[in-house]
């Protein structure tokens, strides 16, 4: 810890309580705003999916309809796991891996009539190996056609939500980039700590430790590294390329090319 860190005042329990009460008013306001936004999502119009898509799954070919596993709702996260992505063939992209780490036991989403699945370009045998290595248990499919392009996930990670009415499937929602962040509670935990995420963009008191966004990311089965080829730094470079092109210049795959070991 740098000695120059300008910490907030150290106060008595009563004074802290007063400051905390003030912050709580703002936190509650944000919680209500978040609820209102989720209420709007539930009123978004639906888009009928008429094209047929074919995925490869652990049990062979599967349609988009099959991905629901009989439940009413489907959330599909596009993760970058394929030849050419940093970490291949041992790992998925470091950011997508972090998202996968933070998926809790799927029983809870299933209890709300919702299936959560991941999809990537890698063949099933590679997906199976990476899942086993990392201890991930969500269903994970192989994209075989234009699905990624049609649903805005050919360039960068993203989450699509669908609903089913009998055989009919509707796209209800799509979110990507920082919007995917809310699915990962690591960021939410860090946001309540004294130091925050310790990333450069944050508005923190003077002297707080801060490193570039993404740079500190790791694969959970590998120790943190400091070399130029560390996964977080590669992710940061890839994001810069993506953001510079207005979000659509180069594929994440291409941006992450380079030494993969």
């Amino acid at each position, binding site marked *: 810890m740098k000695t120059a860190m300008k910490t907030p005042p*150290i106060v008595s329990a009563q004074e802290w309580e007063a400051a905390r009460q003030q912050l709580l008013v703002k936190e509650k306001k944000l919680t209500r705003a978040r609820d209102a936004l989720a209420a709007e999502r539930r009123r978004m119009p639906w*888009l009928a999916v008429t094209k047929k898509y074919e995925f490869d799954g652990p049990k062979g070919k599967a349609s988009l309809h099959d991905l629901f596993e009989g439940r009413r709702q489907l959330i599909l996260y596009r993760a970058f796991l394929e030849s050419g992505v940093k970490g291949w063939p041992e790992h998925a992209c470091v950011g997508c891996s972090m998202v996968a*780490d933070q998926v*809790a036991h799927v*029983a809870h989403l299933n209890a*709300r009539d919702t299936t959560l699945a991941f999809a990537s370009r890698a063949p099933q045998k590679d997906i199976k190996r990476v899942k086993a290595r990392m201890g991930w248990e969500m269903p994970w499919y192989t994209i075989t056609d234009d699905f990624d392009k049609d649903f805005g996930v050919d360039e960068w990670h993203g989450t699509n939500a669908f609903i089913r009415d009998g055989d009919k499937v509707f796209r209800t929602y799509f979110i990507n980039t920082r919007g995917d962040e809310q699915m990962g509670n690591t960021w939410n935990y860090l946001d309540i700590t004294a*130091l*925050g995420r310790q990333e450069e963009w944050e508005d923190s008191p003077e002297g707080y430790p801060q490193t570039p966004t993404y740079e500190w990311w790791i694969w959970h089965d590998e120790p943190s590294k400091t070399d130029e080829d560390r996964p977080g730094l590669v992710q940061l470079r890839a994001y810069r390329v993506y953001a510079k092109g207005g979000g659509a210049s180069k594929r994440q795959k291409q941006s992450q090319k380079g030494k993969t070991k």
Partner: protein
Amino acid sequence: MKLAEMQLNREVVTEAEWLIARKDLLTREKELNRQRDALSAARRALPMVKIGKEYVFAGPNGKQTLADLFDGRSQLIVYHFMFGPDWEEGCKSCSYLADHFDGANWHLPQRDVTFVAISRAPLSKLQAYKKRMGWRLKWLSSEKNDFNFDYHVSFTPEDEKKNKAYYNYANGQYINDELPGLSVFYKDENGDVFHTYSTYARGLDILVGAYNFLDLTPKGRDENPDSTMEWVRRHDEY
């Protein structure tokens, strides 16, 4: 709710129309993100309280003080898991939250954070329940100290008799002998420990990834407003 009833509220539109609606919502989502960032900045500016009292917990490594729990890092997050001394199993809603802990905890140490759970139940009960649920988290017992009472997550028979409890920074009616919360501590270079933050009730909502996923779906959380977590079970009991 039947899908037929739901559809009454929903239009099915063309891709171009859907995109207009989606982009309109996106503007507000981005606004909320900025507000959230500003709120996190305000948390970092919150003053701290120096802790004078020594708490000793029973854990997998024997007796440990609050300062020991930092495990060489400067920040400590404590989840106050509802598991009273005479309870047979941990609270089901806390178990739902706890299903999210291990994933985040691969990454929190990278940002100088140690994460633990603390409950009043004896260590043997905590360990048996942890095994049943398949968790990795470090879980300590505060059975022999006032930690849970000082951080307003456990309540006395006296509170119950008076039907009064101080929870989530307000005086209210007694609800239960244990309630959920999360506290954050900071340790400086001299080894002094400070309390920086505590959150309770819906303040914990942002830590539940499954809720964040559900908030993206057409049906949402689909909860009874008077009994929000009614549908939640332990993951081996659905």
